[in-house]
């Protein structure tokens, strides 16, 4: 590498970091107030919207089928698995047999399942970052580490948004990972030994999340709940685009053979 190359790269990093800081400031100036407004509106809207308690959504399937499933408690420092050498011990809990909790109906039940999916994503990225820090994933490109850190933070905000709705209705926040998907994610994560494997696992989780939110738009009743779900789906889709790019593939939703898709499917929604 020539001296000039190094100078160009240094400039590149500096410029991009500056842009990222600007975007982060913009996010906190615009994005967070918008989120708070959105959650407030959703709470008001859901309180106004009377709906049948017998209504079920597709999302409930991700909880109703959870009997015997495992979930992970998400706290300030989620339990982490090191790649290949450590496995998370599934935390079996009686509550896992009935998820979402039976006192949550309609849109609130959907909110609970959405929060559990976001918790699972937070867990996966946390585990990935820990494994990377421990040197268990080989060489980790700086852009990949930044991606994982940033995306983890966004998923945490998504979880917080859904839990904010639950708490505003006097319900407990969901602090566990999705019980249906957790065992498989654990199993797959244990096989991850490099960045490519981690990106593939992340791609699957992001795809499930994006398609689930997409399907929600026709299932949720409260307009503001639809708005919250729809404000998250495109962000998960952006994560997907960058993950494909990281994997050296066309940066957009695509078929298994790599053909770009003009319409996003929902076959992987839970």
């Amino acid at each position, binding site marked *: 590498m020539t001296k000039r190359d190094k100078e160009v790269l240094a400039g590149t990093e500096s410029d991009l970091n500056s842009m990222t800081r600007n975007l982060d400031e913009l996010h906190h100036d615009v994005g967070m107030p918008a989120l708070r407004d959105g959650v407030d509106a959703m709470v008001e809207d859901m309180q106004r919207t009377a709906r049948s308690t017998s209504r079920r959504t597709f999302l409930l399937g991700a909880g109703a089928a959870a009997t015997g499933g495992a979930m992970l408690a998400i706290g300030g420092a989620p339990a982490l698995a090191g790649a290949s050498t450590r496995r998370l011990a599934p935390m079996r809990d009686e509550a896992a047999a009935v998820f979402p909790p039976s006192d949550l109906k309609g849109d609130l039940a959907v909110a609970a399942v959405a929060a559990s999916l976001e918790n699972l994503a937070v867990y996966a990225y946390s585990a990935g970052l820990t494994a990377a820090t421990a040197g268990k994933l080989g060489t980790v490109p700086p852009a990949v580490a930044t991606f994982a850190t940033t995306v983890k933070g966004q998923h945490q905000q998504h979880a917080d948004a859904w839990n904010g709705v639950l708490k505003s209705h006097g319900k407990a926040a969901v602090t566990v990972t999705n019980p249906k998907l957790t065992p498989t994610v654990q199993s797959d994560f244990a096989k991850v030994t490099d960045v490519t494997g981690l990106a593939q696992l992340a791609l699957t989780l992001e795809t499930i999340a994006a398609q689930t939110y997409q399907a929600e738009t026709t299932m949720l009743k409260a307009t503001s709940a639809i708005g919250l779900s729809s404000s998250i789906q495109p962000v998960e889709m952006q994560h997907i685009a960058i993950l494909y790019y990281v994997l050296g593939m066309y940066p957009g939703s695509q078929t298994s053979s790599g053909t770009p898709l003009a319409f996003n*499917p929902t076959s992987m929604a839970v």
Partner: protein
Amino acid sequence: MTADPRALGELLEESQDLQADALRPTHDALDELVERNDGRRDQDHAANLAFHEEHQRSLRASLGATAILGAAGGAGLVAVLASAAAASSSGDVQILQTAASIENLAVSTYKTALTLPYIGGSAANPVVTKFAQVTMGQHVQHADAFNAAAKHLGGKAQSTPDPAFVPVVTKAVASLSGATAAQGSLGVVALALELENIAAETYVKDTTLARSTSNKALFASIMGIEAQHVSVLLAVQALLMAGAPQDISISSGTAAMLPSAAGSVGFPNAFYKTNMAAPAKQGAVK
């Protein structure tokens, strides 16, 4: 050893044929629209009247508070906009036509961009060229889907671009004249970025405005695709502005070449905004 995503895939049914599934929402949407169309005509007529009256009330209230328009100008604008609202048969038709108008503008913009040597010519980055070609094709499909849905509701297809954004594109394209390849590339990316963001934000908002479940599904199946276009363009823009066009490539070694900040530049917000969304009636057929 890498993760085997097949294990997760086994939990999910019908995940093998993504292309067919991707088109299903559109087909389902159109089928549902056809089934509902006859039964909804009376209901739609009443709703359209209410929509039209509400539109006129809100418009008058808005104009009444806008002193700069004055009495004569305000009255004229009311007539023009009210006729646009009345020309379409329902709120859903109008937002579908507006969506089609945005897609039409995107198609023409990418088509123009691809004639430029640094976008579609031999001097262009092949990744940028492929992205522009693929994205243009996707916008064609989106326009077709929106128009098909509008027609099934008894509306007309929108074949022209959104009139509010045409001057923006015209001005941007004019500014490319005489630009260097580097300047021109940045100009095209900035313009495409603006259009894609408008599209994505409009459709996010439309999922809350559409009354038909099938139309909600249609908007939802497209909004994320546009957001992905935004993401790619943000990354490309950042690399161009940083003087690193060589990093715009698709290969197994791409990630290792990218600077750290490239890992987050493509998704600046945790929640997609809608402040740039086009008004529902802006591109409706008049």
